[in-house]
């Protein structure tokens, strides 16, 4: 996490609002059901949006903490499974060879 003075929410509050609104929509509900077999849970986006707004209003440390925790949890969820392959440190050597 960046230093207190420089910190700002990882996404803009408009992004959180958009994600929440999009999550609640019928189209997304359908796609989520089609892809995962269950309806989406959107409360987290709402909580993140409210935390973002609370931080914007009063720079509340609790809001900052809650937002960071939520986003870190999202990142951890993506890293739940061990990778199948080893990541490269540099691009393939023959990528640009004509």
């Amino acid at each position, binding site marked *: *996490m*960046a230093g207190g003075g420089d*910190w*700002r*929410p*990882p*996404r803009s509050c408009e*992004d959180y609002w*958009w994600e929440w609104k*999009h999550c609640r929509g019928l*189209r*997304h509900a359908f*796609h989520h*059901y*089609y*892809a*995962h*077999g269950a309806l989406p849970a959107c409360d987290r986006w709402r909580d993140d949006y409210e935390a973002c707004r609370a931080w914007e209003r009063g720079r509340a440390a609790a809001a900052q903490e809650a937002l*960071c925790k939520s*986003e*870190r949890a999202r*990142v951890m969820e*993506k890293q*739940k*499974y*061990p*990778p*199948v*392959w*080893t*990541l*490269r440190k*540099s*691009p*393939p050597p*023959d*990528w*640009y*060879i*004509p």
Partner: protein
Amino acid sequence: MRPHPAALRLTARGLPRCLATPSPPHVAGAGPAIGAAAPLPLCPAVGDGGRLAGAGWASAMEQGEAASPPGVREEEEDDLGYRLFPDRNKKQQSFLVRSLFTYHNRCQLMLRMTLDTNPYAQLLLEAMKQSGCTVFNDRHFSCENCDGCVSGGFDSATSQIVLCQNNIRQQSHMNRVVTHELIHAFDHCRAHVDWFKNVKHLACSEIRAANLSGDCTLMNEIARFKFGLKGHHQTCVRDRAIRSILAVRKVSKETAEKAVDEVFDACFNDLEPFGRIPHSKTDAKRAYRDFQNRDRYNANL
């Protein structure tokens, strides 16, 4: 540069222009492309009667010869799929012949349209640039005539995406093929993918490509006469990955299924660089926006 056959690994993205066998439900992967109204004709015989080409969407160039034509020497090794991409080993045609007698120009125009306007492709290009693999149109894309039902492929030996100019007729089709192959290219760029020897690596890339390119949208599946709703996307991704492996490897169905099952959870949930499963251009645009803002995101976690 002619790649050494042993080093060639081409994943092919076939979108069906024809049916490999007269039984549509079995080869539903070779169902009609979106917008096609008429029933599909049978594929022209390719070597073993089009069985491999009928796997359609993702036959790779490392084709196992399941049944070679009579009179041809049976080869021990995979033929690497050259027969699906015959132009790969031929001298390039002259400019005039290419312009007047092939669909080369149309392919180039559609490709340009995709790269300039399609948010899926734009995100992948940007992600690859960030990974150090800037994609150049004339170096990394090649419009060629292909065999059978194949629509495209990724040649890891020459780092080229092959687009089948004779099989891609619609812009939406081009968009999907380019996205699919760019995902393979992106995986090749960011990771040590052993295309040739490791079935799990191949399975993983195919799972990701089927998941993220829009291959398994509901409409596409309906067009292939495959019906399902609850969680059907995963069924589609799994099936297409298995079929792709079977098309390019001399392995049993059980081996392919086992490989896909082992890596499915990890690879289905690996959504790089999109960060979400893009079900529409809106999702893809949003994913592109998030990718552009990732510095802010990572700095403030």
